């Protein structure tokens, strides 16, 4: 080890703490190195051991996830997971968060979030073909909300549209709990040849390490470590001059160049340089392969003058990859990147030293044993404690709440609320048709894409009711999985696997860790029961501002397969005279509902009960009925209950159709119409198909009842003898379709 660069600050505990390391962690660094780290080394350790890279708070919990299954080709641990989808093809997918950056600069934050998840996918050798986005914003009245919504949506559109990957759906929710911490979760799915999946590895000493893509600047230095380890304070905006700016055009070239390179036999391993850039890509690749890497920073393409080794190792500049290629194939690699007008520079070599050696201007500026830094990150067992608050919120005395007096008005109110209204204002800005695969467009329960050259189609959805997760994290997380899978079932797809994005507050708070742990268990239980393995995911902690954390939000992104693409189903009534069937039972559970929150400003009560066996029966009955070609539409009941679900069924984008529905009287009208009981799907079908459906439901042990018929231009819902809702579809649709654009103006 030569002398540290003179201009670099000398390292002590204080500086280490400023980098987010605890005194114990700093001691551990010194033990590993046998000396005090240089400034550059300190930066490298702080990144690798940040929450973002090391998962130090979450790791012990994530072990409880079921991650295996016959379809799983690649589980968690690589850049993304992969499943077998038949015909020699694999679906590669993952979800990522870009919450803090999107709050600071919504357009670029969301855009670079898309860019990052895309690299995770094509790094595996898959061509990305579908994106989803799950968003949470603060109160609609908060002065920053509109600006954030506009910026985030434009950023996702700007990046995704330019690179030519359709954004097919997602979810949006508004709640004051997200005022200071919005959530921007983006998911991507790509298709690869099952036998040609690439990994982030650096095998074979003597092989060459290539830097490809855009040049390195001083972007987001300290982003990953600081953002992921320190909570957000009100004045944080001023502290952040280095926002990353995305360049979707550069990424498009990088994508095409990498896919072209992957057709040659040059690649040993490849990994994107996301947050923690050159540092995490080199350390992780060498770590997985038990090798070392020598890097020569003088060869790293930079776009700014006088960049220091510290800056180069920590930069989060976008649209870059690290590729290890077989020795002797360097010229082929250069040629491909030249064709695409991108940087493609050999910056190092794989070694057998087991060390990361970083060279700059003839001096060695870092010398770190790879294994201890890659695997020796602290694993924390943070205290977990159930908060007292839960007791109070779970009590809900319905006797003190007046039943709904004018259900028609209440329905219009719900349909015209920002949480339930049409999302067309958003998805119209997303190119959701490019690549010409889209069979079911955004607007239905799940989006469906065909796979060219295969008879199958894929269905995608993202779901999470975070109010449920706040009231009861374990049960809420279970419902998130069940609902996602139910949404897939409504398109005719059998759920195959999921990815998750676990968004939580400060893990140093025992009650946040309790929420986290409960949610993990809830997800695991539902996955076990429904046999849906988890193949990838992401954890985002510290979504907290001035002591106020978000609702626990474990977003689920799920992928299913439809055997015959032609049977893909949407959620709109399609034929006059069709019968409407409810698979599942009516239920009257009002706790935690959107209705209670909107009509009574109450976020309380027991959330709906979920019986996973019943759930499975209902879903499979729906899938069977769709597969056999019996139904004209399928829609699940979620937020807003059966009344909102029925209204949504009437809103066919091209031809609205009404319905007449009769429900038996229950205990309370509001609970019957707007309660959110689980495991319910509304089907519409021709009368002649009813016996067949009956048989399916009996075989599957799924309760069902005929509740009405499609037709006319009104939605009429009677309960017992009384017509409780009777409105034209047009008059219901107006508030639903106009709420978002009107609010955004």
């Amino acid at each position: 080890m030569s002398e540290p660069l003179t201009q670099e600050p000398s390292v002590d505990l204080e500086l280490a703490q400023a980098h987010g390391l605890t005194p114990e962690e700093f001691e551990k660094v010194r033990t590993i190195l046998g000396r005090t780290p240089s400034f550059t080394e300190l930066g490298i350790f702080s990144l690798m051991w940040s929450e973002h890279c090391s998962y130090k708070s979450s790791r012990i919990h994530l072990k409880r996830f079921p991650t295996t299954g016959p379809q799983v080709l690649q589980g968690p641990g690589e850049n993304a997971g992969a499943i077998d989808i038949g015909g020699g093809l694999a679906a590669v997918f993952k979800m990522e968060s870009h919450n803090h950056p999107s709050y600071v600069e919504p357009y670029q934050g969301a855009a670079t979030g898309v860019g990052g998840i895309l690299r995770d996918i094509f790094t595996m050798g898959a061509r990305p073909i579908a994106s989803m986005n799950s968003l949470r914003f603060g109160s609609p009245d908060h002065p920053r909300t509109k600006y954030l919504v506009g910026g985030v949506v434009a950023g996702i559109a700007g990046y995704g549209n330019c690179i030519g990957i359709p954004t097919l759906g997602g979810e949006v929710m508004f709640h004051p709990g997200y005022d200071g911490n919005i959530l921007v979760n983006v998911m991507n799915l790509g298709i690869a040849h099952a036998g040609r999946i690439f990994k982030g590895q650096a095998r074979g000493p003597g092989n060459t390490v290539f830097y490809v893509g855009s040049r390195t600047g001083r972007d987001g230095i300290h982003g990953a470590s600081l953002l992921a380890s320190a909570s957000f304070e009100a004045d944080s905006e001023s502290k952040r001059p280095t926002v990353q700016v995305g360049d979707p055009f550069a990424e498009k070239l990088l994508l095409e160049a990498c896919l072209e390179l992957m057709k040659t036999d040059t690649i040993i391993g490849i990994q994107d340089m996301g947050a923690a850039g050159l540092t995490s890509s080199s350390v992780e690749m060498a770590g997985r392969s038990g090798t070392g890497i020598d890097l020569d920073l003088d060869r790293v393409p930079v776009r700014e003058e006088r960049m220091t080794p510290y800056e180069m190792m920590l930069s989060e500049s976008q649209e870059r990859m690290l590729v290890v290629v077989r020795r002797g194939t360097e010229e082929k690699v250069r040629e491909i990147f030249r064709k695409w007008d991108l940087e493609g520079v050999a910056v190092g070599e794989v070694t057998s030293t087991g060390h990361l050696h970083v060279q700059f201007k003839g001096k060695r500026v870092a010398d770190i044993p790879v294994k201890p830094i890659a695997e020796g990150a602290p694993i924390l067992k943070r205290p977990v404690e159930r908060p007292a608050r839960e007791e109070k919120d779970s009590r809900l005395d319905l006797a003190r709440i007046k039943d709904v007096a004018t259900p028609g008005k209440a329905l219009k109110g719900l349909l015209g609320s920002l949480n339930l209204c049409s999302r067309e204002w958003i998805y119209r800005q997303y190119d959701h048709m490019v690549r010409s695969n889209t069979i079911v467009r955004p607007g239905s329960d799940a989006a469906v894409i065909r796979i060219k050259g295969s008879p199958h189609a894929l269905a995608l959805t993202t779901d999470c009711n975070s109010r449920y997760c706040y009231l009861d994290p374990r049960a809420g997380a279970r419902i998130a999985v069940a609902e996602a899978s139910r949404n897939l079932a409504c398109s005719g797809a059998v759920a195959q696997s999921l990815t998750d994005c676990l968004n939580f507050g400060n893990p140093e708070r025992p009650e946040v860790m309790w929420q986290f742990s409960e949610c993990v268990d809830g997800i695991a239980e539902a996955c076990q029961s429904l046999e849906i393995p988890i193949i990838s995911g992401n954890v985002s902690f510290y979504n907290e501002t001035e002591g106020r954390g978000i609702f626990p939000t474990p977003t689920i992104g799920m992928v299913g397969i439809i055997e015959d693409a032609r049977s893909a189903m949407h959620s709109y009534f399609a034929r006059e005279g069709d019968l409407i069937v409810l698979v599942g039972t009516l239920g009257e559970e009002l706790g935690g509902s959107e209705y209670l929150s909107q009509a009574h400003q109450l976020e309380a009560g027991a959330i709906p009960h979920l019986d996973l066996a019943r759930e499975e029966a209902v879903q499979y009955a729906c899938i069977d009925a769709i597969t056999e070609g019996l139904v004209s539409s399928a829609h699940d009941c979620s937020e807003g209950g059966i009344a909102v679900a029925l209204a949504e069924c009437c809103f066919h984008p091209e031809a609205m159709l009404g319905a007449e529905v009769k429900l038996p009287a229950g205990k309370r009208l509001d609970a019957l119409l707007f309660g959110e009981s689980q495991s319910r799907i509304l089907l519409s079908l021709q009368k002649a198909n009813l016996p067949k459906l009956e048989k399916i439901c009996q075989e599957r042990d799924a309760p069902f009842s005929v509740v009405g018929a499609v037709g006319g231009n009104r939605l009429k819902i009677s309960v017992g003898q009384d017509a409780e809702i009777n409105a034209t579809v047009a008059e219901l649709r107006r508030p639903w379709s106009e709420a978002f654009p009107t609010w955004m103006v």
Partner: protein
Amino acid sequence: MKVRVTVMVKKGVLDPQGKTILASLHLLGYKEVTDVKAGKILELSLPKMGKAQLEKKVKEMCDRLLANTVIEDYEFEVGE
């Protein structure tokens, strides 16, 4: 009165547009161009008012709407 507001990407922040235009100029043979920065210009028309008042107002508009001060710098110039 006319006010010309110029908004440019902050130093050090990536300017993908400028970068790409530079590459195109090189392709067209204008190799002597060494850098391109892209920005926007907004020409506002306002009624006559005092300079101090005008400057205060325009600055406010820039901070609130016309520029994104997280990644952009702005300047403005008052014309006739």
